[in-house]
């Protein structure tokens, strides 16, 4: 029974130290890895507002994307939740895209808010979407906002549709973020910068929206929806207007065939 023979005391101590130190070291590695993953999601040009640092629990910047950032094609979309063309674009193009090419890892979709000044509730809808994105519910809320656009754009009752799109516990966290965010939200001013419709005032969540608007103005976004495709790190010219999924898919296929 050689395998039961006790080893030398020195080896036994070394093995015991290794067994104890291993999990401790792994746990210590995991902690920074987790925090760096969170910061990687938040690093996409979304500054964390000052209030978020003091809020409890601390929430990161909103993750308004679908798929893996490592996908060969990145599709950045600038939309306004109250714009009919954006609804059409989401329902007929983005949804099948997300279900197909995003699910298969070919495309990474990144949403940017670009609420237009002519739309009374689009800024507020963007606030709800950002709050939901901070608790990992962006996909559900974006779908609910577009599915019910015609209903909430008449009354402004966005909360009703956001609440039914996610579990109650998550909605509670979203609602907490929306405290103090009453009144119309920020919109892209035609002359540049951000404007608030009458009765509107800044809210901590607006930092995420204004950073998106600033990015859109650099492109520049002239209308919504505007989309920009980046293939293997090379940005292609931005385009505006809704495009059908069949045509966009063919374009993606021609890129992926390279």
């Amino acid at each position, binding site marked *: 029974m050689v395998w039961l023979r006790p080893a030398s005391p020195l080896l036994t101590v070394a093995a015991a130290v290794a067994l104890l130190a291993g999990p401790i070291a792994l746990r210590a590695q995991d902690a920074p890895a987790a925090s760096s993953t969170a910061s990687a999601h938040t690093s996409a040009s979304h500054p964390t507002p000052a209030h978020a640092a003091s809020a409890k629990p601390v929430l990161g910047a909103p993750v308004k994307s679908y798929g893996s950032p490592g996908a060969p094609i990145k599709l950045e979309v600038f939309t306004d939740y109250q714009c009919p063309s954006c609804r059409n674009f989401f329902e007929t193009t983005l949804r099948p895209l997300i279900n197909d090419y995003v699910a298969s890892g070919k495309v990474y979709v990144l949403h940017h808010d670009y609420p237009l000044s002519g739309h009374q509730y689009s800024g507020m809808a963007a606030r709800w979407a950002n709050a939901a994105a901070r608790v990992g519910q962006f996909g559900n809320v974006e779908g609910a906002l577009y599915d019910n656009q015609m209903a909430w754009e008449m009354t402004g009752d966005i909360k009703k549709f956001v609440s039914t799109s996610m579990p109650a516990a998550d909605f509670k966290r979203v609602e907490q973020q929306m405290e103090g965010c009453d009144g119309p939200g920020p919109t892209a001013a035609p002359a540049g910068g951000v404007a608030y419709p009458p009765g509107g005032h800044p809210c901590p969540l607006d930092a995420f929206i204004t950073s998106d608007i600033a990015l859109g103005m650099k492109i520049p976004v*002239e209308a919504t929806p505007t989309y920009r495709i980046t293939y293997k790190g090379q940005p292609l010219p931005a385009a505006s*207007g809704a*495009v*059908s999924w069949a*045509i966009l898919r*063919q*374009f993606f296929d*021609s*890129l992926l065939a390279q």
Partner: protein
Amino acid sequence: MSALGSLLLWLTDHGYQVLLVGLVVVFCVRQPISRRKVVRVLLVLGGIVVGSVFLAAAYGKMKPLPGFAWSWSSVRISLAMFATQVDSYQMLPPGVANTFAHFLPYFELFLGVWLVSCIGQRFSSLLASLTLCGFMIAIATAYYRGLKIDCGCGIGPAEEAGPAALARDGLKFLLPALLVVIGAFWFHRQRQCAPADGATSAAPIRAD
């Protein structure tokens, strides 16, 4: 290739001015024979100007996207990108829009070469004018329907389908094309009505 593109762009931008100056000269010339000679030169110039519009448009649609080199596959990618612009007009079903997007640049290339060659100029300029009218109707329709889209013209920087694009197409492209149509038909009629004048100019007349 980029030098050729720049030359074509310059011609599309300023060619109409040359033709307008030439038109003034035509009205200033009194002698019929001299006038015919000026018109003949202008028709050749007009063919180059209007042809360059179509060549520039074809080049703009077929040129490789940033990060790609010239190749058949890069042209296919550019045409697939152009298909998204055609589709954004929401006038054609996706299948037809796709076919149209892959056909149009080659048609523009053919028409551009035909116009520059000045062969059968009455017909080439008429076809060019009708094509330009078709583009302008599409842009006007998109604007009327409230679509905020790129015109997808392929000439110069991206421009929104709206009054500015219509004004540009009307002044810089359609006006020269119409002038060439009128000039070509006038010249053809002059040749038929006054064979004696034609006999004086022994050189073969390429412009119809």
